[in-house]
């Protein structure tokens, strides 16, 4: 982690003063300037923060209480929130998002863990090549890899269907069939984010002391035992972190479904909360409803994150 390199710095002339003693003894105005200093340091960040984070958070809440389909906008507290309850398309998008969360996230994290263990193993040769293969997708732009997967999964001419045909499997309309569309998005996301999570998990693995394993080996523990009794429990905090991050990211997923399946695909097969929000906000120009959807996403993310933490903390010894 971030380091301050103490080596090579001359020991300063210190009087051994403690950190709390104010050190500008040359006068009141200096002291005041020193006291104001932290505010000056904070100012630029918090200025941008106030305008582009705090205000929008408030404004979104306000927008969700207005009817933005009339000209000029009208206050109408329930119109958007009530629509959420009966909007079938919103429920479908919600269902898709939850499906992705329930399937893609666990699969990806499992793969990432296995990958991290493999990369950490002293038995592995050609490590740099493997690291590159799995980590490179992390730096690929969303737009770029969405385009690539759109080509690969094309129903008529894509590489995936070619491979399926060669293996004797029936070809699938990946980008047109409602059931297949979501799978395509999930495969793409797994490709992209497994490496990212593996990087984090690998760091976690590397911080587990070796002698724990050695002691266990002496006691006759099998690799299986070592994995489930030592590795996983110690990896848990990091796994939870990855889980929460993935869950929050999935709740607002936009770019992949939008670009891979052409705006959520025919029939909304890959419609997620993110794409639905975009359509309501920036295609139908219904800002109020989009804001209501946004807050629903926020609420969901908060609840799911909290649930994750509670669930996993409870099991800890």
């Amino acid at each position, binding site marked *: 982690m971030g380091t301050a390199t103490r080596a090579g710095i001359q020991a300063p002339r210190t009087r051994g003063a403690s950190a709390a003693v104010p050190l500008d003894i040359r006068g009141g105005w200096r002291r005041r300037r020193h006291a104001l200093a932290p505010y000056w340091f904070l100012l630029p960040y918090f200025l941008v923060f106030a305008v582009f984070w705090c205000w929008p958070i408030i404004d979104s809440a306000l927008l969700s209480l207005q009817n933005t389909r009339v000209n000029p906008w009208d206050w109408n507290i329930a119109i958007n929130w009530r629509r959420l309850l009966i909007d*079938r*398309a919103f429920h479908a998008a919600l269902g898709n998002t939850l499906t992705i969360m329930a399937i893609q996230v666990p699969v990806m994290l499992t793969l990432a863990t296995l990958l991290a263990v493999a990369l950490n193993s002293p038995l592995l040769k050609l490590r740099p090549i493997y690291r590159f293969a799995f980590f490179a997708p992390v730096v690929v732009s969303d737009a770029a890899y969405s385009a690539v997967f759109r080509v690969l999964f094309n*129903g008529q001419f894509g590489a995936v269907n070619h491979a399926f045909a060669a293996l004797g499997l029936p070809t699938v309309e990946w980008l047109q069939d409602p059931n297949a569309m979501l799978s395509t998005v999930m495969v793409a996301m797994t490709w992209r984010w497994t490496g990212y999570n593996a990087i984090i998990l690998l760091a976690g693995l590397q911080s587990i002391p070796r002698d724990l394993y050695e002691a266990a080996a002496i006691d006759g523990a099998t690799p299986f035992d070592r994995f489930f009794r030592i590795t996983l429990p110690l990896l848990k905090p990091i796994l939870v972190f990855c889980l929460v991050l993935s869950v929050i990211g999935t709740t607002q997923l936009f770019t992949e479904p939008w670009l891979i399946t*052409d705006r959520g695909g*025919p029939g*909304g097969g890959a419609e997620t909360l993110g794409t639905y929000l975009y359509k309501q906000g920036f295609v139908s120009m219904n800002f109020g409803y989009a804001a209501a959807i946004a807050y629903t996403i926020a609420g969901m993310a908060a609840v799911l994150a909290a649930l994750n933490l509670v669930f996993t903390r409870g099991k800890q010894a």
Partner: protein
Amino acid sequence: MSGFGRIAGILIGTVALGLAAAGPALAQSDVKGEITVWSWNVAATALKSVVPDFNKAYPNVKVTVEDLGNQPVYDRGLAGCSAGGVNMPDVYSVENHESSVFWARFPDCFLDLKSVDAKEADLLAKFPKFKLTELTVGDKIYAMPWDSGPAVVFYRRDMYEAAGVDPAKIVTWDDFIAAGKAVQAKAGPDVKFVSNNTDSISTTWFRILANQAGCAYFDETGENVTVNQPGCVQALETVKKISDADLFLSAGWDGSLQAIKANRLASSVYGAWYEGSVRGNAPELSGKWGVFQLPAFAAGGNRAANIGGSSLAIPASSKNPQAALAFINFALGRPDSQITQLKASGLVPTLPEAINDPYIQQPQPYWGGQKVWEVVLATLSQIKPARGTQYFAEADGIADGILLAYMKGNGKSAKETLDEAAEQISAATGLPVAE
């Protein structure tokens, strides 16, 4: 609206009015400036083909036609208007059924054409009334009608012939299905009979057949939801029959053209403007294609429907509304220009004078010497008008999911499916479902 944008808009509008009221129209060489035109695909090609003639009459106007793609033009128009009228071109292409959202939601975003030049009303009066309905709000006319999209069946002569199918004998949709099975049986598993034209949305087929049956998402007043009326139910059932007969190639715009080029598609049901796309995309197939009118639901029934059709509007933020209007009038208001566009891209003119041009009567070599424009224009008078309303995009999106589930086979009947769609559209728009 941004303060500056508003002031600029008012200034321009005032100047334009002043000019219009000041006396005789400006001489053509006095009209000058640079104008940007947004359009898509073959429509953009058509406009580009008019520019040289335009510049002979108006030498001091520089015209740049940008092909941005159909959806992006719509999206960016909405975004620009919602941002107060920024980043808009001088001439904006808009599809008629999608245009109402602009006039209703952003009434200040586009100019009333009559306000740019008082004589405009005379020219606009030449167009058929039903084309102007969707472009008019109260006293203001926001755009000039351009082309319309009468739907026909484009077909491969050789593939039909090989299967022993005579297109003249295809009178009903049941005939169409039978022909499809015959053609597919003969041509083998690589060839599909017709494309379902599904890009990001799957409702194109439904909308064509519904219009044929005189039904649409909303009624003519635009105040009731009518998607579950008997005409629409019949349309949906027919599309399902075609799908169940396994005649559809599941492909969008791009995929369908690729399939045509690869000899894997035997027909396509689309607006007549598709003519230019087929011809431009696969010139090597010249002589092998033809057209025939839509099959009817029952013998003797309506064989006409409309899909698409656009207009040109002038955003209020344009710095050269005079030049923009001059271009629009030239491109759309003259029979010669409309025929030029017909030749370039297959855009069907709506100006009545253009319909009488001798070119319409000419045999077209690409289409096996058939007088395709005669066939197409013969259907114009039977097309039933349909209103898009400002909720069109949302209704279409809602219908898309529900209809697709039905097409995949979810055990519901067409009537139940459309009842559900009507209910959802009603909930989303606040409009009541018609009895």
